[in-house]
């Protein structure tokens, strides 16, 4: 493997990793505060990509398309909390987990019922790739990487630098104690689901921009997203982001060894390895027995 090939793979892996990090962050936030792995995350992303394509076709502007995708998906996530997930408080995690699978199927089938299975794509101006030290980078990829990184940092900033973020972390740590100290669960949960929706939306639009928009696109990213969330330590959003980026890099750099078909298998193997060697995740604390 020559240096240029390696560099190209690393660039591709970094972008893929940022996408996985966005999805992993959405999964991890839900894991930390709402305490279940949300299998509908992938289909939130798919929804966002379709919403973005439709809005771009309507307004003619990519920025407006992406912005409306974020707004609509955040609304969808909040609605799914209010209508479905809110009602599971106090029950075991099986119920919301199964319901999230149901929601994933429901979202995807409503999409395919009205739009069909044909692939769609965003309209992106064609531009010449920039050659940088032997690595070819499309300008769009720079935009993708930049936007993803900014979104990740923004969500983490909300979580760690703002009062609502502090309240959210308090609920994640100990819901009873948080309630006893007067933290309103309602505001926290609505903010949480807005963040989950926004995060998935940016991920979905980025994924759609990078390739094409198809009904299965989000579901296919669910496995790496779960792997990132577990690898980073369950309920540790920063860990999920780092693990997501690492997963993308490892997947891309292992391509010469395992081929394209088994790229996703890498995340499965890393997931298994984490569970065996370090179930609390790379950055996580040991899970207390409840």
């Amino acid at each position, binding site marked *: 493997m020559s240096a240029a090939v390696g560099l190209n793979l690393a660039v591709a892996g970094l972008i893929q990793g940022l996408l996985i990090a966005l999805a992993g962050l959405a999964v991890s936030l839900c894991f930390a505060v709402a305490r279940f792995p949300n299998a509908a995350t992938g289909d939130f992303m798919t929804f966002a990509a379709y919403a973005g394509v439709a809005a771009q076709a309507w307004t003619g502007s990519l920025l407006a398309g992406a912005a409306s995708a974020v707004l609509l998906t955040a609304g969808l996530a909040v609605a799914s909390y209010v209508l479905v997930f809110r009602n599971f408080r106090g029950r075991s995690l099986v119920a919301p987990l199964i*319901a999230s699978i149901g929601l*994933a199927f429901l979202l995807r089938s409503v999409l395919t019922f009205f739009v069909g299975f044909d692939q769609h794509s965003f309209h992106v101006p064609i531009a010449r790739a920039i050659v940088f030290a032997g690595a070819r980078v499309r300008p769009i990829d720079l935009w993708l990487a930049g936007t993803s990184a900014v979104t990740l940092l923004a969500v983490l900033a909300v979580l760690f630098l703002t009062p609502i973020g502090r309240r959210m972390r308090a609920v994640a740590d100990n819901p009873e104690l948080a309630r006893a100290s007067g933290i309103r669960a309602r505001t926290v949960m609505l903010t949480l689901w807005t963040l989950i929706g926004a995060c998935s939306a940016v991920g979905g639009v980025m994924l759609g921009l990078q390739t094409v928009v198809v009904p299965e696109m989000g579901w296919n990213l669910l496995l790496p997203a779960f792997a990132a969330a577990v690898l980073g330590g369950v309920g540790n959003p920063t860990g999920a982001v780092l693990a997501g980026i690492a997963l993308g890099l490892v997947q891309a750099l292992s391509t010469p060894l395992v081929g394209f078909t*088994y790229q*996703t298998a890498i995340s499965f193997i890393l997931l298994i390895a984490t569970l065996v060697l370090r179930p609390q995740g790379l950055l996580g604390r040991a899970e207390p027995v409840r």
Partner: protein
Amino acid sequence: MQGYLTAVGTVGGIYALLALGLNLQYGFTGLINFGVVAFYAVGAYTSALLALRGVPFVLDFAAAAVLAALFAWPLGVMCLRLRDDYLAIVTLAFAEILRTVIVSEEWLTNGTRGIPGIPRPFSGLGAAAGGFAYLALVLAAMLAGVSLTVRLVGSPFGRLIQAIRDDEDAVRSVGKSPARCKLVVFMIGAGLTGLAGALYAHYLTYISPDQFVPLLTFYVWIAVIMGGAGRVGGAIAGAALLTLFLEGSRFLRDVLPFVSEVQMASLRLAAIGLMLILFTLYRPQGLLGRVAR
């Protein structure tokens, strides 16, 4: 008409066997297996490949069940000492990876082209009698599954696994090992699922990777949830309801001619999704159950 009923009965019986396996895992022990379709595929491919190499049917079916159970072993060992949701994530991932393996390892599985010409037992009896005999075989397997579940659940081991489902810490406090019991149940359930896969492969005589999609796992889940998790009759009733729903949606198109075949598939998926949400929200005990846990 008789041929159609035989076919529906056979498919329904296979769903019932799948539901029995999952009911043992989820209903009685609380294990969240989201990879039902993977063990089903292992059973189907094992039995089909062996039969094509001339191995007698009895051994094919047995090998399908045993191999599916063996596939469950490492997954169970790794996940069952951890939180409940890890098994869910790992089995879901396993099903996806297994499908990738089946698609790409063409030397073994013939890839996306699938495996045609799998021999079917009793095919020498002619279409009608042969179909009937195969239905009898499937129902016999289902009854064996029922009796296995009844015996297992009524035994001291059965009381133990239900105690694990209800309060794992309490079980640990009396010196029992929940992880070991869960592993045994996970493997038995996977074995039943593998057997169902073998019955399916020999019934259809053709298998390909696109028959083993994640959706199938959740067909079985909705059957177990509708029928009432943790009740033996529930798995059978749920599988019957599921078969009724799947067959009914086929006839629905005669009534709604403006809905295309592709859109009907979307509607079916939407109905399954909506049922999963509504049942977990409003009737977690199933259609017929009384006790809310």
